[in-house]
């Protein structure tokens, strides 16, 4: 009986020993951020927007936060804010900006990784545009 327990412990330890525990990933695609004069607009979110990035942890883009366009990637324009912290999280945590196309949030730009993380279902945002406002 004791031998059986030892064998089971050994097998269990052996089987999980190789696990990296990095079991949840954020889907990322390498992209090139073009930060020239592609956009100079800003907007303020009119309502909260709840989003669930690919890592699975829900985030809320807060009503009243101002977002400034800082460039574009192939998937849309990239907006950053100083009004709230935005990270996307899986086993690791990544600071993120939002990517918008046709007034829909389509994904996130990760500025340190230089990657794009798509949303499974794009979300329409209710926004008040502040065109040509000084940043």
């Amino acid at each position, binding site marked *: 009986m004791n031998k059986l327990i030892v064998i089971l412990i050994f097998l269990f330890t052996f089987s*999980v020993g190789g696990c*990296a*525990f*990095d079991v949840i990933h954020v889907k990322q695609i390498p992209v090139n951020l073009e930060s020239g004069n592609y956009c100079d607009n800003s907007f303020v979110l009119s309502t909260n927007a709840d989003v669930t990035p690919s890592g699975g942890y829900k985030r809320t883009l807060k009503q009243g936060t101002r977002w400034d366009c800082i460039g574009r990637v192939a998937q849309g324009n990239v907006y950053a804010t100083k009004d*709230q*912290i935005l*990270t996307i999280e899986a*086993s*690791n*945590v*990544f*600071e993120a900006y939002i990517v918008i196309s046709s007034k829909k949030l389509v994904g996130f730009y*990760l*500025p*340190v*990784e230089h990657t794009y993380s798509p949303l499974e279902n794009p979300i329409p945002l209710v926004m008040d545009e502040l065109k040509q406002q000084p940043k």
Partner: protein
Amino acid sequence: MKIALNAFAAIFVAFFLAGCATGPKFSEISSSIDEPAADKGRINIYRTAVLGAAVQPEVKLNGEVVGKAVPNGFFYVDRGPGDYKITTSTEVDRHLSLTLDKDQTRYVRLNISMGFFVGHVYPELVENTVGKQEIQQCSYTGR
């Protein structure tokens, strides 16, 4: 029986608190901490969680050891604008990636979560309003 119980309780409390930071608190020394140089920003790194007090991994900034995840402890690093990765290692590596601008102050809280053999310490970027409040009672553990 009662003596044994008291002794056990005392040992438990001592063991529980042994790993906590004991230096001056942020609220006591914040006014004497120099501002970062004009071309730099500051990252305040702190841990409020006492759970898993024995688990105190090193904290690395872009691969360089800058401190330890001591319960109720804080330290800070001043760096130029750029991209940074803050990493903690227990039985696994956990990292936070963040940007830093000059004159910017950021707060990173070191949280603890369940692990297989030991707890996992992971860094989280928090709002400045939250970080400023939570760091007040943490003790300085910097070098």
